[in-house]
């Protein structure tokens, strides 16, 4: 059931639906735990053990290791919980946006400014 992804017809736009919610539960649970500094610290100290504790699957574990947002989303990650993961590395939503669009942060920021004209 985890494999039938519905097409919502909005290009480049993941819809966090029941399918994603099921697939991503462990990953999102881990990211939710990052509301606490002690948990962020535990992750920093031993990433492998921390991921294991939350039962991440292979794809999730790899996406975490790669710090790759599109992979994390494909593995069921929800952007609101993933943002807390990004926070561990001091990354903001513009870093996250730049990575997903394959742009430099400067170019991504310029694109945003352009959207306001």
């Amino acid at each position, binding site marked *: 059931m985890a494999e039938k992804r519905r097409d919502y017809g909005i290009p480049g*736009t993941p*819809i966090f639906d029941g399918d994603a919610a099921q697939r991503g539960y462990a990953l999102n649970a881990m990211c939710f735990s990052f*509301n606490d500094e002690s948990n962020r610290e535990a992750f920093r100290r031993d990433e492998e053990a921390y991921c294991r504790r939350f039962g991440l699957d292979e794809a999730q574990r790899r996406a975490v290791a790669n710090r790759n947002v599109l992979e994390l989303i494909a593995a069921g990650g929800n952007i609101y919980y993933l943002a807390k993961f990004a926070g561990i590395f001091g990354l903001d*939503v513009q870093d996250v946006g730049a990575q*997903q669009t394959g742009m430099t942060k400067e170019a991504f920021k310029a694109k945003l400014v352009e959207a306001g004209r």
Partner: protein
Amino acid sequence: MATVVGSVMTSHVPAIGRAIAKGLQQDPYWKPFFDGYPPVRRWLAQAKPDVAVVFYQDHGLNFFLDAMPTFAVGAAAEYVNADEGWGIPTVAPIRGDASLSWHVIEQLVADEFDVTTCQRMKVDHALTLPLALFWPGEGPPPVRVVPIAMNHVQHPLPSPKRAYALGESVGRALATWDADVRVVVVGTGGLSHQLDGQRAGFINKPFDLMCMDALVDEPRKLTKYSALDIVREAGAQGTELMAWIAARAALGGRVSKVHSNYHVPISNTAAGLLALANDAPLSRAA
């Protein structure tokens, strides 16, 4: 009896919290955003609300996927803010108005809204930052709050039509609240933005400006969109617009625009601000 003075709708993003903490209000990047607020502060200082009913969204601080409510109504004497994981300073607990919360809950359930009632609820930047923008400075905001969190995390989301009806029901509750209090209705979130996917950074200025206009005089116009329509038009996180829709619906009839501001971008987001005075502020008695 309660007087509903009007509504203020504003965007919220964590970066605003960082900018406030660093005192960047006059920084060239932030100035066009922060400069929107003084007229709203002046209006609020005149309108003197005692209570803010706040439609907002939780971004994974209080709710997780084990139990994700569509609509959650706070019913506590105070609401604690906490670390959200991205380093914005936390604020002191926000005072609640539990009696009004329960009155709202009773109206909502009577009107067939299946709310989740929260006697303990952490509130995140989506509630605290708007209060900090409306009432800046060191002290706590001069209002008690009734927080109403709307699911924007997990699809299926409620529709704009449902959000509008939710606001109307809250408006009915305020109209029958037998207490000498002045109420402002707050809607936070949006406007167009998208954090995730290859379309990250998507912004739709024409759609935002259309919404801000419609919210003044013809808010029902926005109820023709589905939640997925909003995703398409305003980006994956643009669905936060629903808090604006609910806040506007709570006012009911005719309103006057006090002030508005629109600026792109702050962080990844098109920032909107809209203050509406209620032209018929006095509620009917119960």
